[in-house]
Each structure stands twice: as C-alpha cells, then as structure tokens.
C-alpha cells in the first residue's frame, strides 16, 4: 500500500519558511504511528517551498505503482549513464522499522536513500536548492493530478506550439526522413508531457514566491528532442541540431547581456570603455533570468539583479550614486516562457507523397544502422522518457 502524506497546510503539502543557506531545514510530521523527519540542505536562499511526497512502507516497496517505480529507477539509470560501475547504494537493504520509527532524509546527494524508502520529491526541490547543480539527481517530480490537469488545460496548447516549431526546426536543418520525423514527433509527445509536469510543478512553487531560473519551456523541450535525435537521426544530423542549439543559447545570452548593458548605459550614460568593461563583467556573471522576455521587451523599465560590487569600480561618483537609487528586480520571476506564438494555428508539416516512399526506404536503411549501433533501439521512447526527466533541469544550467 502506498500512503500519500500531505504535511502542513494546504493540499500541496509541507511548507518550510524563511531558511537561508547553508542552514538545514528540518520538518517533523507525526501522524498516528508514523513520525517522519525531513531534512533538506539549502544551497540557495528561498522564502518558502512546498514538499509533496509519497511514502512507501519498506515491506511494500516492490508493489509500488509504476510511476513510483520509475522514480526509484531514475537515479539508477542516471548513474548508469554517467558511471559504468554498478550502483552499490541501490542494493543496500532497508533498515527495519525505518518508517515506523523515524525517517531522516537528506535531500541533497541522497537520491538513493530517497528511492529506497520510496520518497518522491520534485525536480522543483532539486532545482531550487541546488540552482540546477543537483547533488542528488533524478528525483522525479509529480505535481498534484488536479493541478496538472488544470495547468495542461490552460497552457497545453502553448507547449504544443513549442514542440511543433522545434520539430519543424529540426526538419529544416537536419532534413530527416518521414519515418525519422514521425519517431521524433512521437518522442515529442512524451517530452511535452514531461515538460508540462515540470512547469506545472514550477508554477506551484511560483504561487508561493519561489523563483526558478529555468523559465524557458523551449530549452527543456529542445534538450529532450536532442536526446530523441540521438536515437533516431544519424550522427551528422544530430551534430547539426546540437550545433544550432548551442548557437541559439549563445545568441540568447549575448542579447540578454547586450540589453542589460544598454539599460545601464541609458541610466548611467557610460563612455565607450565603460560599456566594454561592463559588458565583460556581465558576461562573466551571466544569469539566465536576464533573458526573460519581459526583461527584454520592457527594456527601460526593469533592471535585472546585476553584480553591483563588480560594476561600481568601473563607474564615476555620480554614476555610482545613480546606480544606488536604481531598483533592481532581484526577486521577480516572470513566469514560464513558452514563446510569443499564442493564438497562431501553425500549419502541419507537409510531406511530398512522392518522396514518402523514398524516405521510407532511406529511413529503413538509417534505422538499421542506428539499431546496430545502439542496443535497445526499440525501446527508444522509454529511454527518452526517462532521460528527459533528468535532462530537462540540466538544460537550465
């Protein structure tokens, strides 16, 4: 039997407030026979965060639902991918009476422990507490079913647009066969679902004032599709896509830095050397939140949280005084970004009927080579599904 415990107030579970790194936030819940202590190590400031977790008594861990099982397997899969050695931690026997007496779980670096006791914590927590640099990775998020349904009903079509345009981009640059494209489109549906889950969780956090630097849905979807490309496309095709993704990220970063420097110039009237020096400092201290569309569009209105201490030595006394009186948006999160393509009914991909047969032949040949190179190629969708759960937060780095 799986027991779902909601701690604290509200349906989204336990709330821990006002803790600063490097403190440990500990919450204890006692209910009937059960006492659970949850300890999380903070690596970045946070006012509040929700915790939703599912607790499986050790004796019944084997009967866990598929999604719980997937959560348990995720860290193992991640380790396998990163490290050829088998994960010793996964084989540790569960302690007797662990659940009945007390469970102490250190979230950071404790994915194994979490999997053992069947505790499922969100990507949200991992992202928030490690700023995308998780010690214990692959702890799978599961937003509340109702919240997820509402989120999908409200924003699902925007995510569809992102997947559709990204697949179109892949088609344009990689020129996949119809069969390759269809396989990626199938993966795209799973990637979409995972991304929606991730952003639904993120949104639950946002309503509680939690910030997340990873606000761009396209990054998550593109990372997922890159994994899919590695499965279904040739190495050359994948390399083209990968190169373009890197170039896209670089271009976005460059623009965000340029815009931030421009905002400072408008306020401080910098001279040419100052502009160059400040651009350098901003590049060295880049923060992805500077690239949020609202920050770019509302250029003159909002100034992001910039490294003042590194910038002030470059400024004159008057400029320093003006900068001091300028408000910086350090605690503003603009919500998730699905691109400004709402309200457009995008055309479906058109395929030339004549070329379809040729494409099928070509695809068959390509797949034969791909399957020969990659064992387990038939399980591509499963693999992408699992990997996406891990890969999406990595994209936020």
């Amino acid at each position: 039997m799986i027991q779902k415990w909601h701690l604290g107030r509200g349906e989204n579970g336990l709330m821990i407030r006002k803790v600063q790194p490097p403190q440990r936030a500990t919450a204890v819940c006692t209910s009937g026979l059960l006492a659970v202590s949850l300890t999380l190590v903070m690596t970045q400031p946070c006012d509040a965060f929700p915790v939703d977790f599912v607790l499986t008594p050790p004796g019944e861990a084997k009967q866990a639902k598929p999604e719980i099982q997937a959560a348990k397997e995720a860290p193992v899969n991640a380790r396998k991918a990163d490290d050829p050695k088998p994960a010793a931690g996964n084989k540790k026997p569960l302690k007797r009476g662990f659940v009945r007496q007390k469970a102490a779980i250190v979230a950071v670096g404790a994915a194994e422990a979490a999997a053992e006791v069947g505790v499922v914590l969100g990507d949200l927590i991992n992202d928030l507490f490690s700023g995308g640099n998780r010690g214990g990775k692959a702890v799978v998020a599961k937003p509340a079913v109702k919240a997820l349904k509402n989120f999908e009903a409200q924003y699902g079509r925007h995510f569809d647009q992102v997947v559709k345009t990204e697949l179109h981009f892949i088609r344009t640059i990689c020129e996949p066969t119809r069969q390759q494209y269809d396989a990626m489109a199938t993966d795209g549906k799973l990637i979409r679902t995972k991304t929606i889950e991730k952003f639904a969780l993120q949104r639950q956090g946002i309503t509680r004032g939690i910030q997340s630097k990873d606000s761009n849905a396209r990054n998550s979807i593109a990372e997922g599709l890159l994994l899919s490309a590695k499965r279904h496309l040739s190495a050359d095709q994948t390399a083209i896509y990968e190169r373009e993704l890197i170039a896209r990220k670089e271009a976005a970063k460059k623009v965000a830095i340029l815009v931030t420097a421009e905002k400072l110039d408008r306020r401080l009237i910098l001279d040419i050397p100052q502009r160059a020096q400040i651009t350098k400092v901003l590049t060295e201290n880049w923060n992805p939140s500077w690239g949020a569309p609202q920050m770019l569009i509302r250029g003159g209105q909002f100034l992001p949280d910039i490294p003042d201490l590194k910038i002030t030595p470059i400024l004159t006394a008057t400029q320093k005084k003006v900068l001091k009186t300028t408000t910086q948006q350090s605690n503003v999160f603009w919500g998730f970004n699905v691109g400004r393509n709402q309200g457009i009914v995008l055309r479906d991909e058109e395929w030339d009927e004549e070329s379809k047969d040729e494409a099928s032949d070509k695809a068959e040949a390509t797949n034969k080579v791909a399957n020969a190179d990659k064992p387990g190629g038939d399980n591509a969708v499963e693999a992408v599904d699992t990997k996406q759960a891990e890969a999406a937060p990595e994209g936020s780095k």
Partner: protein
Amino acid sequence: MNKQHPTSWRSGLLPAAILILCVTHFDSVAYGQVGWTDQQLDQWVFQQYGNASTARARLKESLKLYTEDVDQICSLSDAQKQKLQLAGQGDVERFFRKYTEVKTKFQAIRNDQQKVNKVFQDIRPLQAKLRTGLYDRDSLLQKCLVNTINRKQFLQYMKVDKDRQRFHHEARIGVIISLLDQAAPVTTEQRRELSELLRRETKPLEKSSQYDHYAMMYQAAKIDEGKFQQILDDIQWQVFNQQLGQMRGMEQWLKQNGILSDDDDSEILLPDEQVAAE
C-alpha cells in the same frame, strides 16, 4: 448555558464596516465626488519616482550625468559647463511649471470624476516626458549645446552619440530576433541575415523609453514583407508576421505616448547649418 463567544461582538463589526463603506462609496459615486488627493496626482504624473521631490532629485542627477558625459567628450570650458547646467535646470523648471499648472487645475476639480478624466489629457504629456527623458532634441539643453560648443567639439560629441545610438540599436535588433527565436527558432544563418536586414532598414530611436521594443517592431513592420520571406520559411514567417501585425496599427498610440515623433527623420544641425537649411 448560553455562553457567548468572547470575540463574537467583533465579528459583527466587519459587516457593519462594509456597509458603511458601501454607503459612503455609493454616495460619492452618485454625486460624482471622488475626492482624489494630491498624492494620487503625483503617482499618476511621476509613476516610478512616486513624488515630485524624488523626481526632481533624479532629474538633477541625470543632468549632472549628461553634462559630465559632454565634458568628457568635448573638454568643456567652465563657462560652457555653466551654460549647459543652466539650460538643463531650465528644462527641469519648465517641466515642473507644467506640472504645477496641471496640479492647480486638478485641485479645482478633484471631486468631479468627469473633469478629472479630462485632466488626464494634460497628465499624459508629462508622463511621456518623464518616460523619454527631459533632455531630448527639443530641450533647452540640446539647443544650448549646439549653440555653445564649437564645430570640433560638436563633431566629437556627435561621433560618440552616434556610437551610443548604434549600441542601443543593436540591443533592440537583438531583442526582436531573440523573441522570434523563442517563438519559432531560426538558424544561425537566418539570425545573421535578419540582423543585417533590420540594421539596414530600421533606424536608431531618437527617444528612448520602456516601449523601445514596440517602436522598433513598428519600424520592422514597415519593412517590405518579401524581404523577411526571403529569409524565413513559411512557419517562421507565420509566427513573425503575427508579432509584426500587432504593431502595424500602433502608430497613433506610439505618438500619443511620445515614443514616436512626427519629425523623426530630422538631423541635429549646427547653428550655421540651420541658417543654411532655412
């Protein structure tokens, strides 16, 4: 035993308070008496600055920054610096004189909602002025600058100013492409071609405000569609065209808010050039 809850009397206060508020609100609405305060007017006019004194302090700081910048570029004499300072202060005073006129008008009609709405027509230009900055081409400071500095200084100043405009323009072009990239990704080559097209076909903005992006998109929307279609594929163009479409009907709004001016094409001329032009 019927023991009354100690706080139950308080719970009755809330409905009573709401009732009083509703009655007084209805009363004021019914007679069109809203009773706006001076603080409210200040918030409307000064927006991000909040009140007149903060706005004045910020405008003076901006003036100091501006004159220091001109001094660094042109190596001004003391007399020239003084002239510029005076001219800039004149701009600040001119702004606050207009504000005082609006305030006097407002105070006379503050209880009449309909008339307050009319005062907004006077408030809007003040908001626009603060948004785009006092020291634009029509300012006393700019006029004083061209009459105070010599040709050599002027050319040096224009060179640096043009460079700054180009820097800002590049940022604005980057934003347009970045937002398109987020909606319908483009390739590195398309990004480069779009940058070149926008650089060629749009101009740096004369006035800067929080709505710069809209002003740039408005310029982009005026570019021949065929030029974009040569760079973008059907789906990319479908997305970008929708973004541009939102800007096509915004000319009036952009002008009303001081973001676009009617004489955007005019160049700053030195006094002797002005005479020659006339």
